[in-house]
């Protein structure tokens, strides 16, 4: 049995070969080459595989570091919004509080509830964590820092985004807990009702930019105008949808702690629970990143390097999420669904009309 050809891989994941301007390719490639030449092995397939593995690890580390900073930022900002301090004991200004929490979760017992479905209960964890990490694989972070740059990047990102609800409903069922079950149902219903307006909004961006490729969308915005200006309605719809998609207050109905103790996560304990929490932040990061890329001009900006602009914008959007969380109460599940189907769907269609109009008569507005 031989490994598949490079071309077979690249048709899905976009071009990686010879992409020397991409640090997430060039650095792992040189490391892999060094390792293999040290071992006197000359196998291009192995080189490719090793490059991929090292690139994955680097990406994982980058995302994880960001997520940890994100959690810290959220706790600090939330503290200030709420007239308190947030973490301040562990490490400088409490920065290592997350690590302390993670360690605490590590030493907790991992509980499998009685009469729970072990396979469903545990496999869910893998699916949720893996699928959420995978989103970042298709989201470029700078013109010279991306994992893949496929032509269908935008569509792929949302396809991966939509995997989680299946796992969640399995988790809710497998926990053998009524709160989990209700949480799983809610999660699925909410995802379903928000995917539609969100994707229609995304489609309006695609109509204007004429491509599904993130880099080209950003380049289009750089040469014309950020899409938040012509598609402001779409921006608001997308903001609400993405908050619902990543299940944050005010749309955190699947794990509303006052109603369903912790929703579908109720029965997960210890490190499993910690991983779920971490995953929700990975999804927040991915959501904010996608929002930045398709509406806020991506990594374009003056003076500073593109990767820095990207992170600045992502953290700004995330601060917006935190701000909303600090200010708004939770919406009831039927109201969430009503909002999705009755308000956001028509609005997104209006936004689509605007996009089509701008596409046809865009010359007037230099679009």
């Amino acid at each position, binding site marked *: 049995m031989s490994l598949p050809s490079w071309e077979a891989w690249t048709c899905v994941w976009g071009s990686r070969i010879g992409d020397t301007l991409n640090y997430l390719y060039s650095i792992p490639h040189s490391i892999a080459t060094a390792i293999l030449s040290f071992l006197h092995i000359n196998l291009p397939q192995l080189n490719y595989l090793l490059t991929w593995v090292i690139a994955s690890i680097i990406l994982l580390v980058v995302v994880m570091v960001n997520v940890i900073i994100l959690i810290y930022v959220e706790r600090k900002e939330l503290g200030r919004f709420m007239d308190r301090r947030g973490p301040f004991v562990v490490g400088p200004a409490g920065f290592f509080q997350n690590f302390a929490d993670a360690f605490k979760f590590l030493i907790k017992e991992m509980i499998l509830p009685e009469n729970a479905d072990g396979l469903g209960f545990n496999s869910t964890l893998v699916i949720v964590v893996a699928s959420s990490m995978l989103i970042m694989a298709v989201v470029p972070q700078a013109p010279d820092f991306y994992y893949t740059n496929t032509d269908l990047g935008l569509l792929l990102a949302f396809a991966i985004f939509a995997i989680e609800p299946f796992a969640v409903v399995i988790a809710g069922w497998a926990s053998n807990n009524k709160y989990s079950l209700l949480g799983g149902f809610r999660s699925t219903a909410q995802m379903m009702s928000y995917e539609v307006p969100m994707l229609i909004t995304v489609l309006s961006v695609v109509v204007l930019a004429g491509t599904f490729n993130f880099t080209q969308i950003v380049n289009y915005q750089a040469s014309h105008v950020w899409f938040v200006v012509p598609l402001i309605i779409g921006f608001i719809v997308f903001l609400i949808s993405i908050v619902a998609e990543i299940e944050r*207050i005010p749309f955190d109905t699947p794990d509303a702690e006052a109603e369903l103790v912790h929703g579908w996560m109720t029965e997960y304990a210890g490190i499993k629970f910690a991983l779920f929490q971490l995953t929700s932040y990975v999804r927040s990061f991915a959501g904010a990143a996608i929002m930045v890329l398709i509406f806020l001009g991506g990594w374009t900006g003056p003076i500073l390097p593109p990767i820095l602009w990207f992170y600045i914008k992502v953290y700004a959007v995330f601060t917006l999420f935190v701000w909303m969380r600090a200010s708004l109460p939770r*919406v009831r*599940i039927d109201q969430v669904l009503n909002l999705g189907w009755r308000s956001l769907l028509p609005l997104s269609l209006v936004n689509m009309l605007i996009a089509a109009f701008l596409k046809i008569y865009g010359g007037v507005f230099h679009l």
Partner: protein
Amino acid sequence: MAMAEMWINMGPQHPFTHGLWTLKVKVDGETIVDAEPIIGYLHRGFEKLCENRNYPQIIPICDRLCYVASMSWDHVYVSAVENTFDIKVPPRGEYIRVIALEIQRIASHLIWLASFMTDIGNLTAFLYAMREREMFIDLLQALCGARMTYNYPRIGGVSQDMPKSFPQQCLKTVDFFEKRLKEYDYLIEESEVFRIRSQGVGYLRPSDAINLGITGPALRGSGVPVDLRKTDPYSAYPDFDFEMAVEKDCDVYARYRVRMNEMHESCNIIRQALKKIPPGPVLGKAPRHFPRGEGYARTEDPRGEAFFYIQADGTDRPYRVKIRSPIFVTVSAAPAILRGYKVADVPSIMGSLDMCLGESDR
């Protein structure tokens, strides 16, 4: 078409319960078909405890009936004893009691606001309310030396006069607090999300409310103007000019507004009391020996009608003490209010009724 129905046990360890109790709800999908409250986890045999302690010793355990409104429970017990044995309280003592009671009412309503806000998911308002409550707890601490369990009223008055700096501190706090109340209006009341969570939720018909024995802000939120401070005045309340807060919407939002308006009125009462307070002693002569007799007192607790019935047999201990707790009755009415709403409405409806299980289970 009904879906498969199931019972959900909410509590005793559930974030919405605010105390130890269980609400078994029968749901059809997410809609509540039936509910059954179960209480008794905190039952300490309070009335039996009272039968085994002498009259002054009961005051500190009355604090434990509901430790977010200790002063009210102390006061209702003490006034029941005073009614039973015809003990006079000097006017200054009555005024200080009213001041303490109103501070306690504000503190209790703030705790309610905090817990209600966590129920509907707004953690910021929770922390703001707790922050403001701290100021009033400081006031009570200056008055009697304890932060939660005051043991301040005595049979025949209060245990000590207020400190010299207290009136000034109190006025400052009240003025500052009214500014903060405006902030709450912006943060909570004028937010559309709060409106859709509270308006049209938890309807309680006025006739039902009266028949089910619900009292206090929940009753006034249903448009029934009954406030015992007005309708059955006690202590020094007839001396003050204030209004009872009544709303006609009968829903969660109405109860919210009733409590917010009551906080304003409490501020008014505190100001008037500090202005009018007469000089003199604070503790009248209380007998050491209590004759036979029976008597009762009812007051407007922050949660409703609090009632103490005392039967004395001539010894130093009461023969029978009966406590009517407003929340005990309110819990019993929970199924009637909850039927037809969503599971997600349970926290907001029960939160709007201001649960306190210490006084309910006794």
